[in-house]
């Protein structure tokens, strides 16, 4: 559960939520005398609550929409069974083998280079290429059919890349083309091991969602990173959490106040063979990978969009929303006004207080009239 100070700080990331939410519960009529029935009639408030129970725009972002089953026919069903046999019996072992071989080759090359090679520049270059190779192996292991559109990212200082986030494989898909540095949440298990050893070499910044002080530290690290021309270009997922690739949640402004160019990347997965959304509350990353590896292919489009700069008089939040609009338009997603971290925390009491304020003021005003 979030402490109130964490919740209060999350406020800084959000534009005025009231612009998006349904307006206050009371109808906007001219003040009349206040009667008993006006106070007793809580129907608008109850309706809002019931509406939220029945359907709400936040939970929709994390819903995996499973495709219609197509194997319901007498001749389609055996075909589907054959497909299952091929996918699980032939493809999966082959892919696992590829992955295993890839890891072995990678480690065999990476560790000697990392510990023995002294030349800083050459070592970085080789490590970068190795990471790119390893990501390509990953992509091959789920037969990734990825179309890249737009100019490839170049290694220049003073730029960051931002993309919408659906799964950790977003990172792998982008990394195979360009060795980005990333900012990531520290994970447990084998993923954490990889983060610590390998990703450090391309440049990684760690954050901890639950640590409030962490923000300042991370913001500084980001600023330092983009200044240094030797560092790999930085990739940031401003949503802060995985969303189901049909919606986007609010972008955190951290990436947009670094005083440099922001290059948007839009990623859209085609659900034709598998839904690439990683619902981290339902599945571990390992299970997610297994699901991808037992499907026919992962099909997706990646668009590298035009670099954007902070306009005069634009706040970081407005900048973030503008870039989000670009990505949403390109990838055909829908926007919701919620902070992704609401997955883990409760909303700030500020919004309830705002509703209370509006209601109280209306009551007091109408009382004056009578």
């Amino acid at each position, binding site marked *: 559960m979030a402490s109130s100070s964490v919740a209060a700080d999350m406020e800084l990331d959000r534009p005025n939520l009231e612009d998006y939410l349904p307006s206050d519960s009371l109808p906007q009529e001219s003040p009349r005398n206040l009667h008993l029935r006006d106070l007793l009639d809580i*129907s608008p408030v109850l309706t809002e609550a019931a509406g939220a129970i029945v359907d709400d725009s936040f939970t929709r972002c994390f819903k995996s929409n499973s495709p219609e089953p197509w194997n319901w026919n007498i001749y389609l069903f055996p075909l589907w069974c054959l497909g299952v046999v091929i996918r699980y019996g032939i493809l999966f072992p082959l892919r696992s083998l590829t992955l295993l071989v890839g890891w072995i080759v990678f480690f065999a090359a990476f560790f000697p280079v990392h510990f023995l090679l002294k030349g800083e520049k050459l070592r970085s270059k080789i490590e970068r290429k190795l990471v790119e190779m390893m990501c390509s192996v990953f992509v091959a292991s789920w037969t990734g059919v990825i179309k890249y559109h737009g100019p490839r990212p170049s290694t220049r200082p003073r730029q960051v890349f931002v993309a919408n986030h659906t799964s950790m494989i977003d990172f792998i898909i982008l990394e195979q083309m360009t060795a980005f540095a990333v900012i990531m949440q520290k994970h447990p298990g084998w993923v954490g091991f990889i983060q610590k050893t390998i990703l450090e070499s391309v440049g990684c910044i760690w954050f901890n969602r639950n640590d409030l002080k962490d923000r300042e530290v991370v913001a500084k690290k980001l600023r330092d990173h983009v200044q240094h021309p030797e560092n790999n270009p930085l990739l940031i997922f401003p949503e802060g959490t995985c969303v189901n690739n049909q919606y986007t949640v609010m972008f955190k402004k951290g990436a947009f106040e670094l005083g440099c160019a922001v290059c948007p990347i839009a990623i859209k997965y085609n659900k034709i063979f598998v839904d690439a959304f990683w619902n981290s509350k339902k599945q571990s990353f390992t299970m997610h990978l297994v699901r991808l590896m037992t499907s026919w292919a992962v099909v997706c489009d990646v668009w590298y969009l035009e670099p954007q700069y902070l306009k005069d008089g634009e706040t970081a939040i407005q900048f973030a929303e503008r870039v989000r609009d670009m990505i949403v338009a390109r990838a055909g997603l829908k926007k919701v006004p919620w902070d992704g971290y*609401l997955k883990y925390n409760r909303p700030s009491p500020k919004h309830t207080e705002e509703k209370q304020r509006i209601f109280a003021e209306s009551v007091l005003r109408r009382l004056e009239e009578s």
Partner: protein
Amino acid sequence: MGNASSMLTQYDIEEVQEHCNYLFSQQEIVSLYERFCQLDRSAKGFISEDEFLSIPEFSLNPLSKRLLRMVDGLNFKDFVSFLSTFSAKASFNQKIELIFKVYDIDGKGKVTFKDLLEVLRDQTGSFMTEEQREQVLAKVLEEAGYTRDCTLSLDNFIQIIDHPGLKMEVEVPID
């Protein structure tokens, strides 16, 4: 999760429909079941308080705590029954009854000044003092012909909220 209605038999749907007095169509019940399963993440058969509060729009509703006492731990049948009050086909009296129950949260059968004060407190928070709230309530009660220490029954409520245009409807999205 696969197609929701495959987990809900036709018999189940009809039973739920009967339980809510046919205020929802069968399609709406299937839709509500999908929603119920989505909210009941650990598939316990009911939605816990925590899971309701994970809906941001619900969590920031001023009356969420009172409503939680009514919806916490409901199974699917009762969940639908609760929501059926918000169907367009529900009667005016049924809607007033729900409002009454929100006030009379401990089910005494009558609403006291204390209950009215509590609900007003939830709705106004720190933006009105307790004296202001008591003052407002006493004034409107008196104007309507009730004293401060009277109790209100459901019939009183129906009489007071004599508002045929009462809009208390929620639409169930059908995919």
